[in-house]
């Protein structure tokens, strides 16, 4: 079976700074993979290039066998790639249901009318916001905003989900809920690329990890092994701990 996501030799420079240098990796359908690395190592830049938010200076991104390297974000979304944002970004003039409806109406397929409303309820129920569609997003708690963020991403009906530190900032019990949700998705066969700092979550969710440092890929492999890799520890904690 072909790869769900294949990125090859990705390059990005900001002025003189090389942010991403020759990164390549592949995700098979149904895989949940962690993208790790210290702050500033280029993880979010990679996410942004996959989702079309940043143009690539070199290399290619393929999703389900199609080259999406030069696509604008809305095209990428229609191509079955959805994302969440590092800091939650609910749309405040829309209510909870409308936030989700937006992605349904403009996602991979165009849903509108009664059918769309049913799908909205479905998504809200899935993330645990059942019956709260009419609420203002400003009134949601932090975990509920995270849930909404997830519901909106899922409403695009993606084949590939990019979660950018989606679990960050949750307390232990909320974290449990969050991990469960992703596991639930995993069970449905969703391919997920996960940028994450919380090792507990990475261990629980990811069969495989990719580690970046200073814009380059420094390690890739099964989570348990990668997390023991001295090079990875050095990248995270500095030379003294190697």
């Amino acid at each position, binding site marked *: 079976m072909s790869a769900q996501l294949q990125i090859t030799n990705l390059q990005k420079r900001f002025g003189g700074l090389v942010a991403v240098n020759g990164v390549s990796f592949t995700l098979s359908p149904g895989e949940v993979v962690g993208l790790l690395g210290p702050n500033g190592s280029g993880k979010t830049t990679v996410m942004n290039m996959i989702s079309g938010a940043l143009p690539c200076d070199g290399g290619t991104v393929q999703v389900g066998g199609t080259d999406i390297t030069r696509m604008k974000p*809305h095209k990428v979304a229609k191509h079955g790639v959805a994302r969440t944002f590092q800091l939650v970004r609910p*749309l405040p003039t829309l209510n909870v249901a*409308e936030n989700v409806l*937006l992605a349904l109406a403009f996602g*991979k397929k165009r849903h509108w009318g009664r059918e769309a409303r049913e799908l909205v309820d479905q998504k809200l129920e899935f993330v645990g916001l059942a019956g709260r569609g009419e609420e203002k997003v400003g009134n949601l708690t932090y975990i509920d905003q995270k849930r909404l963020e997830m519901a909106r991403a899922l409403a695009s009906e993606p084949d590939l989900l990019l979660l950018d530190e989606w679990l960050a900032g949750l307390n232990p019990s909320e974290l449990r809920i969050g991990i469960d949700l992703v596991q639930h998705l995993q069970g449905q066969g969703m391919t997920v690329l996960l940028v994450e700092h919380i090792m507990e979550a990475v261990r629980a969710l990811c069969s495989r990890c990719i580690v970046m440092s200073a814009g380059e890929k420094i390690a890739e492999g099964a989570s348990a092994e990668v997390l023991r890799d001295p090079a990875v520890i050095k990248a995270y904690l500095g030379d003294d701990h190697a």
Partner: protein
Amino acid sequence: MKTSYAFALAGAALVVLALAPMFIPEYWTGVLLGMTGYVTLATAWALFSGPTRYVSLATVAFFGVGAYTVAVLNEVMPYPLVLLCAAGIGMVMALVVGLSTLRLAGVYFVIFTFGLAELVRQTVSWWEVNVTYTMGRYVFLPFEGRHIYWQLLALAALTFLIAWAMGRSRIGLALKALGDDETVASHAGVDVTRIKLLLFVISSTIITLVGAIQAPRWTYIEPSIVFNPTVSFMTLIMALLGGAMRLWGPLVGAVPLFLLFEWLSVSFPDHFSIILGLLFILIVFVMPNGVLAKIDDLRKGGRA
């Protein structure tokens, strides 16, 4: 149920307004005409500028182009065709302008659109002076105030219908979303540029038509008359006063403001500017988000 009520009511209001010139003196038809013109301008303006928060001062550029098209073409082709031409020209101009400017944001867009209005005016002047050797043009169409009023009323109704339908459509949802956060909207699959362009074109075409329809009222057209920047400012103020984010906002702003201007110029012709200015400052202080938002606030306050 509610929708059909509202429609019935709006329809009835439309009929009353359409019949009004039969019963009221000419002057009041003129007032209704001017008011309908501004209601249409403000609503069309808010159609684009409300959700996208792009403050456009190009209103008079399109308005003037519409009026000029009528002035140039009114003797060579039948009137409906002239209107169609005006709409077409406005549409093309909006496309060109939109494609080149919609990536500017904030005050840059404001100044750009103002510059655009002046550029169009200067270019038309220069063209008339050096190429056609005429400046003023005459529009002798057999229209009286009420004929123009009826046309404007129809256009206003159409504008409201478009705005209403837009508010209920996918595009309306996308518009609200991109007003909040363009990045999120685009990652949800919304083609942000295309939707903004579409809205800009629709809004500008309506504005062009308002200019075209109103042109026969002045008999004589020259750039300083039809590219009068006051039109842009008035439109903006009216829309903002009522609340540019709501369907009825521009109407709620335009009607009282227009009547106020009329009353001021009748009652205080020598102190018009001072009173107008003071009122303006007062409005900004008392109703920062527009009348409708203020009413909402008061209602909420009353309940709490």
